[in-house]
């Protein structure tokens, strides 16, 4: 029951903050609500027993990435007239309809009879306790996966970050 209350609290918070990101005109309000949405989502990750990912979400996303966003927004310092007119076109309507339709399909698949609900619930019951006892989602278990099973993607990710750092400097600095 407590889990249900916390889930709905975090879910409504995340959706409300996410809606602010989309509908606020000024990007600085959008960035600050995105930080809020990321915090609510990290609460939901804790409910899913993903403790390491929840901490990483706050440190990397809400900490590092969003600071970058806020930094760029402050740097550009857009005036009210530079934010541009919000125009409504036919193609935007088509795109919005496509988004709503794809959401409907996903929700129908997740809730409808096509999704194997019985097996899932059974799996939930059978797996629940075993997972929590074994330190599920902690630093040790996830680190074991990262450094043993997926060591190659891990190293490639470090290379990707290096390339991104160099690329960001090269692109943003007009003349080197």
């Amino acid at each position, binding site marked *: 029951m407590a*889990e*249900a209350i916390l*889930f709905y609290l975090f*879910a409504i918070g995340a*959706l409300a903050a*996410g809606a602010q*990101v*989309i509908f606020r005109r000024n990007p600085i309000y*959008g960035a600050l609500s995105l930080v809020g*949405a*990321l915090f609510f989502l990290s609460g939901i*990750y804790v*409910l*899913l*027993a*993903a403790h390491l*990912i929840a901490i*990483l*979400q706050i440190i*990397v*996303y809400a900490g590092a*990435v969003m600071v970058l966003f806020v930094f*760029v927004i402050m*740097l*550009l310092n857009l005036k009210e007239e*530079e934010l541009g007119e*919000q125009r409504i076109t036919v193609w*935007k309507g088509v795109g*919005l309809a496509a*988004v709503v339709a*794809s*959401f409907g399909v*996903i929700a129908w698949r*997740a*809730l409808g009879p096509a*999704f*194997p*609900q019985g*097996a*899932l619930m059974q*799996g*939930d019951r059978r*797996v629940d306790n075993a*997972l929590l006892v074994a330190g599920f*989602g902690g630093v040790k*278990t*996830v680190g*074991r*996966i*990262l450094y043993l*099973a997926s060591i190659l993607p*891990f190293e490639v*990710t470090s290379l*990707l*970050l290096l390339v*991104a750092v160099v*690329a*960001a400097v090269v*692109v*943003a600095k007009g003349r080197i």
Partner: protein
Amino acid sequence: MDFFHAHQAQHYLVLAAMLFALGAAGVVLRRNAIIVLMSIEVMLNAVNLTFLAFSRFPLVPNSPMGSFLSGHAAVFFVIATAAAEASVGLAIIIAVFRSRTSVNVDEFDTLKL
């Protein structure tokens, strides 16, 4: 589906679908490049939520412990990739803003013939 027993995958999957639709709507509707990038971050978070939901409530109940946690590893890589994507995307926005003095994606048409 039981609405008051939130501890099953369907709740998390529907929440993830809602967040993904919200982010996609932002990409479609907004013209400010920074807000488009932030909407992409929302969509990536929805995908992360799906990974974690399936890792907590696996479809195959009796698989070994490690295979549940590969969802967590995938989320780790998505977070790292999102950080790289945000840094490069924001660098591109700054570079384009320098030449066009605008962040409106409708005006970014230099690649057009």
